[in-house]
């Protein structure tokens, strides 16, 4: 069951992104083709290609026709053409997507699971030594900008100790397969994953811990203690179960932050995902790619939010009732 309120939210968000994508280049002064494709690309274009592009985006027609052409393109999965990569934007993005999914996905799972577990343990021991050190430590880690943490990890483990590869997602030209390939991928993943996860664990940890502290004051915890339940049963089955709810509802938001974080981390490690693609596109002023990435990421985050909404009532029975 999807509630109307959330659908409206996602609708507005999507419209906002699409409007930005559509209007931004067209609002720039000068030739819209130049705004869409950038100066460098334009110089190298043949007149035939220019004419083709003008026709394709209906750039010589009124704004409504342009809008129609824009949507028609989107519906066919046409995000435009990257001049820098000389390939359709959708192809470029799809090529990079798996790496970002791997990085962001594993980081999401890792930081949420670790954050929730540590948050539960920490909140349970509120004010004691473990709680205080976890709180200070994780908050300090969260204070580091992810790119700086990435740089530090890179310098320590990659440059100084030489333990792990400095860049990329695979050893180039190694022609590995099977287990060796997986190991190679893992080795390359380790540092970016660590920087991303370490920076973001604090969010879910703090939220879980704070919720845990308030949940511990709820009457049903007293009931559970009175029933003579074991500590771990109370901690996880009763308190923890309730404490992880707010973390879960914010998965969509975490995802947005992780994608953002991935942008910087991928850049530091030259990890070939969407973040690094963004960086490359920025350097090359490849606007179609930038726009495509923005749209892609936004849709991604929105879909994730939608999935959370759909599964949430299974976790909190009140949800299907309260709204």
């Amino acid at each position, binding site marked *: 069951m999807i509630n109307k*309120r*959330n659908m*409206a*939210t*996602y609708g*507005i*968000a999507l419209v*906002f*992104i699409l409007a*930005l994508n559509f209007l*931004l*280049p067209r609002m*720039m002064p000068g030739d819209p083709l130049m*705004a869409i494709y950038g100066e460098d690309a334009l110089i190298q274009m043949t007149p035939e290609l220019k004419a083709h592009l003008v026709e394709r985006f209906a750039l010589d027609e009124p704004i409504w026709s342009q809008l129609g052409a824009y949507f028609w393109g989107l519906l066919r999965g046409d995000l435009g053409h990257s001049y820098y990569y000389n390939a359709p934007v959708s192809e470029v993005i799809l090529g990079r997507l798996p790496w970002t999914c791997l990085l962001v996905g594993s980081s999401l799972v890792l930081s949420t699971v670790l954050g929730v577990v540590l948050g539960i343990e920490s909140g349970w021991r*509120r*004010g004691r030594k473990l*709680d*205080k050190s976890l*709180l*200070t430590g994780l*908050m*300090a880690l*969260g*204070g*580091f*900008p992810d*790119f*700086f943490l990435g*740089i*530090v990890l*890179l*310098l320590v483990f990659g*440059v100084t100790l030489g333990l792990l590869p400095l860049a990329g997602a695979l050893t180039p030209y190694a022609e590995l397969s099977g287990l060796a390939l997986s190991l190679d991928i893992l080795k390359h993943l380790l540092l970016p994953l660590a920087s991303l996860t370490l920076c973001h664990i604090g969010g879910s940890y703090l939220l879980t811990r*704070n919720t845990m*502290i*308030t949940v511990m*004051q709820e009457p049903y915890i007293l009931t559970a203690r009175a029933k003579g339940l074991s500590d771990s049963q109370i901690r996880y089955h009763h308190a923890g179960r309730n404490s992880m709810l707010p973390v879960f509802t914010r998965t*969509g*938001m975490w995802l*947005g*932050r992780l*994608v*953002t974080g991935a*942008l*910087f981390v991928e850049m*530091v490690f030259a990890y070939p995902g969407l973040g690094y693609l*963004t*960086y490359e596109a*920025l*350097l090359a002023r490849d*606007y179609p790619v*930038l*726009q495509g*990435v*923005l749209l892609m*990421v*936004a849709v991604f*985050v*929105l879909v994730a*939010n939608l999935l959370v909404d759909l599964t949430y009532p299974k976790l909190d029975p009140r949800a299907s009732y309260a709204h």
Partner: protein
Amino acid sequence: MHISPKRELKRSSLGRVGIVLIVLVLILAIFAPLLVRYEPSGQTASAFESPSLEHWLGTNHVGQDIWSQLAYGARTSLLVGFSVAVFSVLLSALIGASAALVGDRYDRIVMRIVDALIVIPVVIVLVLLAAYIKPGIGYIIVILSLLGWQFGARVVRAQTLVLKEEMHVAAAKSFGASNFYLIFRHIIPDLGPILLVQFVYAARRAIFMEAGLAFLGIADPSIISWGMMMHDALGFCYLDVWRWCLIPPGVALSLTVLSITFIGHAFEPVLDPRLRGEAGA
């Protein structure tokens, strides 16, 4: 509102650490001209000189003094953080409080927009905008403010809904007070502590994002910024110049963000009094 942010700050040792750190950064920013010997953007020596008595932190790839850049970079960070925090908190207060007070359709529409802005990955939007506009510092402040009020607005709205039910507000209403009067005479003063917390969060986000944009190399390159210093240094990672080119701005940025994080944490009980009594932490 019987919870005083000042007292919460005093109770929390992390909060006190945060205050000390931010005061240090403030001193660095305010007295930058007195603390450095060289123009931050002037080419004062050859490239990549290691730290010496002449250049405390050495020089960068074009021979600029790192210590000077670090001190002036603090100015940029704090200026952006402070201004964005002021603007976005004002927006949060106005939009959040008015949504709660007016209610009905206005409230529903505003809250949908707020939710939508929360869902959208703001940094990506920023990157796109910055790529087109190549913003100077004023632009950055405006864009960050416009994209940073939504989190606070939600909290302000929730708190206003609570306040609205309180007697003195109801009493003022019964004397015929307008919504405008209510917001400024009753709601905002009572929201004080909460706005302060939002201010801290907004400043943190802004400082972080400004550095991030500069790090990506999409901000105006004439602005001296810690993010830009790191951007410049990252390209020379293979040399050991990172020891003085990369680490100082990184540490400065981290400590600044960290100090604000600690202060924000100390204020958390203002938002949820049940979190109080964090004896040592």
